[in-house]
């Protein structure tokens, strides 16, 4: 055994093997806390003159002592930051893990005005702890699994035992057990490998907010916590989950309805405006008031490209700007946005390449799409925006009709783990309308989403 470990040391120089009399102490110095090893292993062993494994179990002060049975387990524990002690062929593992994580900080991608500001981190234990802190119930079930032949990533399926839909749970568990990966980089790996649908619509929420996670767990959904990943996957998800925001429940609920209507409007605006503008100005000019038409035609004067090319140039350059802005280090970010704004806004117009109204149209459409903080959802909007634009550029308003029909077909035929994606609008559920666009907070206090729970009443 020891010889094998010495051989292994040749390829991993951070493995340390220490010999005290007949006791071997083996650990990774990169994964272990040296102070812990000094205080709780080396000191007692020399002080109490420990000779056999019985003494170790009785005298060493540690909460997490494991007696190791075979070689595979030994390596697994070693990689998890345990220290291995070998005495007379008895193998004992000690937890001496060092904290390799960033501490709990504010959520960077999902901003709220009111409400808790803490966010999930890369640490698996902390993430589960943050959920446990909010739901102190015996019914909170955490099922742990290890996935990844090389990465050995821990993932856990979290749900409320008394609320969750068993059918859904079985399905997800079955799908997870089928996963065959060698490396799990992020929770998205797990989501992509259990997602069987072929749709561009996001059927999950990947959140870094523990409050949102526990809110949705209490609605009967299932959360997947993946080690080393600060995002938690929540399944299943419906269309209206992207219209709602956890912030809505933290403020005066009587005003939330208007906020949600604005979100719906901006969803429609962001999808349809570029297409509608092209349709009206190149095909259906009669649908505008004369004065507006004159205004548009004055602005178009001297622009060398057809409107559709103009729109595509603007859309693509805006997307480039957006992508660059997310990748660029924070320090250069501001100068970048100044250049972007000047180049796209001022210079393109004054050079006569782009008409000012086109910049307004693209800007309105893009700004509206950023109301939604889910990146997958924004990308989904972007695809339909371009599709509407293309259909409109071929057949005008008629193309907008066709594309709207295709859009609705796509949206309503989508299933999120065998649940209808547009619930509760279609299939229509009158009672669930109390927390859809209109919000009645009393409904949330008393009842749950009928579709995904077996236990509708909260108390």
């Amino acid at each position: 055994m020891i010889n094998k470990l010495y051989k292994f040391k040749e390829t991993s120089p951070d493995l340390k093997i220490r010999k005290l009399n007949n006791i071997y102490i083996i650990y990774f110095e990169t994964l272990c806390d040296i102070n812990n090893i000094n205080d709780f292993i080396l000191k007692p062993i020399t002080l109490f003159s420990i000779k056999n494994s019985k003494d170790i179990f009785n005298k060493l002060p540690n909460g997490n002592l494991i007696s190791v049975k075979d070689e595979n387990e030994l390596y697994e524990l070693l990689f998890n930051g345990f220290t291995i002690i070998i005495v007379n062929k008895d193998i004992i593992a000690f937890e001496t893990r060092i904290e390799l994580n960033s501490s709990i900080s504010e959520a960077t991608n999902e901003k709220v005005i009111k409400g808790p500001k803490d966010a999930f981190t890369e640490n698996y234990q902390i993430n589960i702890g943050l959920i446990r802190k909010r739901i102190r119930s015996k019914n909170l079930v955490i099922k742990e699994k290890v996935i990844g032949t090389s990465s050995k990533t821990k993932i856990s399926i979290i749900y409320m035992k008394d609320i969750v839909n068993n059918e859904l749970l079985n399905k997800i568990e079955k799908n997870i057990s089928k996963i065959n990966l060698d490396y799990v980089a992020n929770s998205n790996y797990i989501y992509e490998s259990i997602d069987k649908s072929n749709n561009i619509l996001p059927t999950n929420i990947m959140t870094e907010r523990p409050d949102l996670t526990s809110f949705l767990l209490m609605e009967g959904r299932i959360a997947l916590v993946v080690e080393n990943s600060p995002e938690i996957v929540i399944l299943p998800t419906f269309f209206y989950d992207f219209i709602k925001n956890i912030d809505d429940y933290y403020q005066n609920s009587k005003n939330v309805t208007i906020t949600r209507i604005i979100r719906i409007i901006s969803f429609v605006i962001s999808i349809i405006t570029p297409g509608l503008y092209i349709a009206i100005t190149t095909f259906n000019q009669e649908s505008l008031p004369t004065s507006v038409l004159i205004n548009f035609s004055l602005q178009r004067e001297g622009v060398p490209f057809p409107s559709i090319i103009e729109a595509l140039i603007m859309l693509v350059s805006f997307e480039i700007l957006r992508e660059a802005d997310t990748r660029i280090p924070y320090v250069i970010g501001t100068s970048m946005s100044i250049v972007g704004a000047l180049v796209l806004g001022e210079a393109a117009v004054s050079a006569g390449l782009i008409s000012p109204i086109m910049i307004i149209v693209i800007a309105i459409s893009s700004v509206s799409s950023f109301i939604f903080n889910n990146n997958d959802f924004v990308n989904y909007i972007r695809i339909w925006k371009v599709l509407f634009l293309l259909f409109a550029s071929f057949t005008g308003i008629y193309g907008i009709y066709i594309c709207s029909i295709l859009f609705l077909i796509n949206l309503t035929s989508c299933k999120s783990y065998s649940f209808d994606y547009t619930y509760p609008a279609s299939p229509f559920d009158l009672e669930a309308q109390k927390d859809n666009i209109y919000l009645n907070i009393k409904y949330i206090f008393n009842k749950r989403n009928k579709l995904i729970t077996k236990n509708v009443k909260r108390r």
Partner: protein
Amino acid sequence: MKKIIIIIFILLLTGCYNYRELNNLDIISSIGIDYKKNMYEVSVQVLNGKQSKDSEDSQIIVYSAKGKTINDALRNIYSKTSKELYRGHVSNLILSDKVAKNSIVNVLDLFERYTDIRDEMNIMVVKNVDAKKVLTVLTTEKIVPSEYIKLAINNKHLKTGATSSTRLDEFSSNYLKKYIDPVITVISVDNYNKKAKNQSNITSSNPKTKIIINNIAITKKGKLVDYLNKKETIGYNFITNNIKNIMIPIKCDKNNYSSISIIKSNTKKNITKNNNTFLITLNINLKGNITEYNCNNINEKVIKKLENKTKIKVNNYINNALFKQEIVDSEFLGLKRMIYLINNNYNNENYKVIIKTKVNINRKGEIKTSLKDKNNESKNK
């Protein structure tokens, strides 16, 4: 995959047939039609897409061309412009007196056939000059002349009741109906001279050349027969229940006048048959305010008297219109059609009209008596 290919082919094969960029369009705002030496002369008023806000450029450009038919003339305009003439925004169709007397319907046939013409397009006759000249007159700054004419007709109709706007669809549907003849709006140009085309016309505070909205003209068999005066026009509007908010001046004593503003007017028509003659009863309900009163003493009795005088005046307007109908023999009031709708066997028989007018004056404005009255009171004290 197959579906996507089919959709792409459908789009590529059927799309773009009416694709047109805004800056390649000549947006027509008005069309004027003259008839000279057996040829139509069609003029189009096009919105100038090149003018900038600061420059002195004209907001409009007028092109005209001649042809055997109106469409022929319209096509001949293409020898003068590089852009496509876009008819989707035509708001006025101006006919010269000669064209209207020749035949209005001959002109309208083309516009009814076009699919992209707006049905709300106003048609009108210009009384004293050529239609082409009306189009060239510049109106008050920043308002396109065609827009100006449209707004002016609406306002005159609302505030005085002495004109009525005629839409293309109304005109042609009335023309096609039995026992009713359409009417047409009349405009004219004051002081036309060559300078009216220039910016100088609108830079002065009192432009010399102006477009004036007149009353209406009546037609028979699609031809203009006669012009109505102001009284007859108001009478016409009363009978067709088209009075909005007009003012009627009433004499209150020997030399002085008062004004009654009508704020609500409703005309209901009843038809009864009595001994083989049809009786049409016009029930007119009016609500009014006193907005001006320059006689002494205002009280219940005086108000009753004013109500009575208003009633007589309104009846007078209506009688004027009825009398005109008899002289001209044109069914512009549509009374015979009322009978025909009830009785299909109706065959041009005679009918009688009874006018029942009710006037209600309920407000006297901010002061309760007249200013004259107050003056006397204070002097007596």
